Structures are given as C-alpha cells and as structure tokens.
C-alpha cells in the first residue's frame, strides 16, 4: 500500500517489534498520531497567532501553556521548542562560542555537538571516558586544566551527555557540572536519551541549559526538541532581535535570532504537545522499562561468548552488545554471512538492528510490553540454539 508516489505506507511498528536504538523513544502515542492527522498542514498551529506574533505566545492550541509546562517539568526557567536537539546545541554554541574558543565535550559526545562547535569556529576538547566508558568529574577537571595550559584560557561552554548514544551509559552530570561551575563554565545538559525517558531535574543537576529530543525520546514527530535555560542564561540565548532594515526601517518585534523566529509551526509541535501528558507519566515508570531491558539483556548474556559492552547492570534501555564470539562465529560459515542474524530476526518479526551486523551492535527495548520483551529474549535464544551456539 502506498501513501504517495513511490512512498510505501510504513508499518514497521505495527508488524514487528522494533529494537532500533534511536527509534524506541520517539514512537508516537495514540494522541500524537491523532494530532498529526488533524494538524498535518504547514502552519497549522498559527490559526490563532496574534500579536506579538511569536510561537510561544499562541494560546489556541495551548502552545504558550506548553512552553511554561515544559520549563516547569524540567525544573528550568524558560523553554523553547526547537527542530531537534541539534538545533538546541547550535543555538547555545552560537551564543557563547567565538572563533578559537575551546569548548568541552566528551569522547562519547554525539556528532551534532561537534558540528555546533565547528559552526561557531570553536575548538572541540574531549573529556576522555574511562575504561568503563564513563565520563567522570575528575576527568572533566583534568581536561579543563589541560585546556587552560594548552590554549591559555578556559573552555567557554561544556556539552555533557547524561546518557551517551554509544553505550547508553549514565554519566555523573551533577558532579561534572559542579566542576564546570568552579571554573565559571556554563553547562549544557544533553538529554537526548533522558528527557522524556526518565525524570530530569535541570537545576538539581546543575545545568545551565537542558536539551531534549522530541523525536528521539518524547514520542514526537521529527524534527522536534526542547531547549530550556536558567533565567540568567535565557536572557542570553533567547535574546530578542535588535536589527533594523536600512531602507524600510523594519524591525521584527520580539523574535529571537537564535530561534530564527518561530521554530515548530505545525505537526511536530502538536505531536509533541499531544504526547506530553503521557511522556510526563511514563518517566515515572522507567523502572518497568529497565525490567524489560533486563529480560532481553539477560537472554543475550546467556548465549556463550556474548558480552554486554555497556555498563552492567543496565541503567538505561539502550545497550551495546558484542557478539563477535557468538553470533559472528556463525556468520563466518553461514551462506547468508552476517545477514543471517537480521534475517532470522526479521522472520520472527523483530527489526531494528543493522542488517549484516553480528559483531558490535546496539538495541533499545524502550516502550516494549513485558510480553514483547519476553518474546524478543526467546527469539535471540532460539536463533542461537538453532545455529549451534551454547546457551546457559
């Protein structure tokens, strides 16, 4: 079935259990799907936009209220919706980073944080993760001192991922923020894998900025996200326009340059808004998600030769696994080579791992029911046994 020329209707999540590491937290709620149906047209949230003509002032649908609720929920002072977490990184980097400025991030940081620094002509200075793939406050302190010696000045900003995309490990942002603040370095908390997944208290964590991803973790359409700030920093990153046209003398009211005026004007925003009550509720039940993750992870660990590369016991549902000494040994002689694993999973209605991957790969169990988690666990064990691998 097609929904347009050359565009097949996408039924991945209706027909299969999708364990794609980046897709799990962005699956829409029923209410978001309904909002998408009603608000698909371009500027659909702008029907009742009145002076001062800015997105976060629209009261019908309740966009203004949503912005306030977002800030309160994250325990920050001001929030804006942005077209993806990356646009939040970009807005903050563009505000604070100038040519040649050193900027802290980590050896596990997402590439878009590097790009945000690059675009602002800054210098990326990575805090190395330790042998457990954890970024510590001590390592942050050492890196700051190293940057000071090497560049003759302190970093102007720190990007710290609470949960990294490579291992799904949790890093002690609160302790790192304390260190950063001792040097007067503002800290951007990257919550792409936490905001909308587990409770986030920005001020308690010591964040000057909280960035979240709507499409990765808030059950919202792409591209969507949130950038929240403390009152002090909001004045800087959400400053209003001061430009005037030299011929027309036009001014542009209270538009915010870093936001390029209004940000999400339609389906992305209402999708985010419609999911929000459910997202607020679901973060309270992250323990249940971890239990489901444990069912799948334990099954994989029971297959001889399989190693969980992420911290263990797991504290997040995104997990990196090494099956070089298990599933990959089968791939060496299998007629389908490495594709046998994704093929076998596909035949059992499980999708989301990279086709051909049998060595190091990632999966995410977020949003599964317990029945689905048990099913996925059993399928991994069955595939292992069918291919002669030992299972404990």
């Amino acid at each position: 079935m097609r929904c347009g020329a050359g565009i097949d209707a996408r039924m991945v999540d209706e027909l299969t259990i999708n364990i794609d590491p980046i897709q799990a937290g962005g699956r829409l709620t029923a209410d978001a799907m309904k909002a998408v149906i009603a608000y698909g047209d371009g500027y659909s949230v702008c029907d009742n936009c009145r002076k001062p003509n800015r997105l976060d002032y629209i009261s019908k649908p309740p966009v203004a209220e949503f912005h306030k609720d977002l800030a309160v929920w994250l325990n920050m002072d001001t929030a804006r919706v942005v077209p993806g977490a990356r646009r939040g990184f970009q807005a903050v980097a563009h505000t604070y980073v100038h040519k040649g400025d050193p900027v802290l991030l980590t050896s596990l940081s997402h590439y878009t944080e590097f790009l945000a620094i690059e675009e602002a002509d800054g210098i990326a200075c990575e805090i190395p993760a330790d042998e457990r793939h954890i970024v510590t406050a001590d390592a942050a302190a050492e890196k700051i001192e190293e940057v000071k010696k090497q560049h003759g000045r302190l970093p102007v900003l720190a990007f710290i991922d609470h949960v990294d995309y490579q291992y799904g490990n949790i890093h002690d942002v609160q302790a790192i923020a304390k260190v950063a603040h001792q040097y007067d370095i503002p800290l951007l908390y990257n919550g792409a894998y936490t905001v909308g997944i587990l409770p986030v208290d920005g001020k308690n964590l010591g964040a000057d900025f909280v960035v979240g991803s709507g499409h990765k973790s808030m059950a919202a359409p792409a591209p969507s996200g949130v950038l929240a700030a403390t009152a002090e920093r909001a004045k800087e990153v959400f400053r209003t326009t001061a430009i005037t046209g030299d011929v027309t003398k036009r001014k542009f009211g209270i538009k915010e340059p870093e936001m390029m005026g209004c940000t999400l004007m339609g389906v992305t925003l209402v999708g985010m808004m419609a999911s929000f009550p459910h997202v607020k509720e679901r973060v309270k039940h992250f323990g249940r998600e971890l239990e489901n993750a444990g069912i799948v992870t334990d099954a994989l660990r029971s297959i001889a030769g399989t190693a969980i590369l992420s911290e263990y016991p797991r504290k997040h549902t995104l997990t990196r696994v090494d099956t070089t000494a298990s599933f990959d040994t089968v791939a060496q002689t299998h007629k389908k080579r490495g594709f046998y694993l994704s093929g076998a999973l596909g035949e059992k209605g499980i999708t989301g791992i990279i086709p051909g991957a049998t060595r190091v790969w990632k999966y995410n169990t977020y949003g599964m029911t317990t029945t689905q988690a048990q099913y996925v666990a059993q399928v991994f064990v069955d595939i292992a046994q069918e291919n002669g691998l030992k299972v404990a």
Partner: protein
Amino acid sequence: MLFQAMYTLTDLRVLLRETAPLHEFDAEQKAQVQRLLDNLERQVGSLKQEMLK
C-alpha cells in the same frame, strides 16, 4: 465524524503495535477490538448518511 472514524482506526493501530508481531489478543484486548470496530461501523454509517444524502 470523519475524525472520530480516523481516531478509532488510530486506536486499532496502537493495539497492533502493542501486540506485534504475533497480534495475539487477550480477552481484554479482544473486547477492546470489538468495541472499536463497532464504533467504527457506526461512524462509517453516519458518514454514509451525512455525505451521501
């Protein structure tokens, strides 16, 4: 009524997601499917009446 019908289908869609890939419904889910399909039939009936009158 148009949106109600589409939203009923959306609720069915979500149920398919929650039970993928086997779509084996327990008693509660079967009752929910029955209720949703009944609603859908009623909603489509109303659409026929309204749009073809």
